[in-house]
């Protein structure tokens, strides 16, 4: 295995560990917003799509790129906004 892959694997493992530990006892009311918040985070795939763009040079590739960018951007933008709307319910008592 390449040292780079090993380093990536280390990072991946530690990422998993952080993920496991970061969710503690959460009230059920927060389950859905938390899921939605996590969903927004994997919108980071947009960064991947942007990096991919640099390597693309065929018409089929452009189409694929467009769709991927559309998908990823939708994930990011919609994800954060909808989570925020859910959480707006928890502002301090009226």
């Amino acid at each position, binding site marked *: 295995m390449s040292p780079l892959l090993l380093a990536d694997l280390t990072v*991946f*493992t*530690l*990422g*998993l560990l952080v*993920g*496991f530990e*970061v*969710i*503690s006892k*959460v*009230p*059920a009311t927060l*389950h*859905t*917003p938390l*899921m939605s*918040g*996590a*969903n*927004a*985070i*994997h*919108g*980071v*795939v*947009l*960064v*991947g*799509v942007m*990096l*991919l*763009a640099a*390597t*693309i*040079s065929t018409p089929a*590739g*452009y189409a*694929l*790129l467009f*769709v*991927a*960018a*559309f*998908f*990823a*951007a*939708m*994930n*990011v*933008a919609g*994800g*954060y*906004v*909808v989570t*925020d709307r*859910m*959480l707006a319910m*928890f502002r301090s*008592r009226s």
Partner: protein
Amino acid sequence: MSAFDTVVHLIYLLCATAFVLGLHLMNAPATARRGNQVSAAGMGLAILVTLAVLIQGQEISPYAAWALGLGTAAGAVAGLVAARRVRMTAMPQLVSLFNAVGGGAAALIALGERPASTQAEVTGVLDVLIGALTFSGSLIASGKLAGRVPGRPIVVPYGRWISLGLAVVAAVMAVLVVGFDGGVWALAGAAVSALAAGVLLTLPIGGADMPVVISLLNACTGTAVAMAGFVLESTPLIIAGALVGAAGAILTKLMADAMNRPISAIMAGGYGTGDAIAVAAGAGSAPVREITADDAAIQLAYAGRVVIVPGYGLAAAQAQHEAVALAQALTSHGVEVVYAIHPVAGRMPGHMNVLLAEANAPYEQLQDLEESNPAFPRTDVALVIGANDVTNPAARRPGNPVSGMPILDVDRARSVIVIKRSLGHGYAGIDNELYSDPRTAMLFADAKAGLNALVAGVSAYAS
């Protein structure tokens, strides 16, 4: 490594830290919103930095730039509009949709990138398989919740065998890609079989279990994104993907636990018929909405005015001390609390008074029917503890055993939480329409245990 690259890497690390901090803050109601904002800030920074990388590298073709720009703009607008417009109740299906496109994007990355190494081939195949499965599965889940796909479990004939077949096909394709440089077509084949598998896995699951399934698919998307990170050798994708993958998995377990359903049973399908959990008490009862003690506790803690309506069940469970402890906890948290006592609640005249006096409920907080009824419309939560007949709106109609009896107008409160063990009847032996009121949520528990959980919840989650 150039200074620019170093800075980029460090910023990516900062973004990853923001994601972790964001999720951390989202564990508690008081900080949850700020958590989401921290996470979003990290995301914005990551995107900006990547933009800088693209500009600095100058390798991107103009067409690709256009495709990227237009796609991103259109996707962002679509996401924003959908997120802003959606009704509260339709949010879960929208989240599922966002999850689907996220998985789709991850899968497309692997389809678009020429694998540079065996590592990239392996992770690429994994990316495509998981991403495609998530894509179709999440779409079905979203459709079920939205009512576009029937919510009841759909049994596909020979579903297990077909799934097995699809798995074999996917495996063969994967081997072709990795071992024999099968190229894009094998990859596409893998994608198609994963898409089919996603549909097949989600269809048999009932609507009631969908939130858990969506959470599971969310974790899958995280994993797919991490795989895409391996393909692109991009650290932020790996970290964020792994983070969401693991956090999503834990969350899925918590959600399934809260519903008292093992994940395996959920995935086996066949349970849950609508968008609410129906608990049948006898013939002809409408579906009711269930609530957990945690949720009820938060609702109570964030209320301005709570009216406690005790009934025979409070006496049967001898839960008077717990009821008063809850009232005290709420009062000390700034909530206005009164007890509304119906003239015939319980089984003897003054039954509720005897119990509440024993538990030292202040006399000033005890109201009878005439005092309490006018105030229900400005009450945030009516908490009905083991009372039934004395809250039954059927009393307002002639022709049934409780007709003509004055009732406590709990159904005029902004929301109602009912603690009882089941949908069982009260003394009069008739169904209570209150329970199927959309504003009513049922906390099925023995009054003593239920109230204890509420007290614990209020002290845990109230800031």
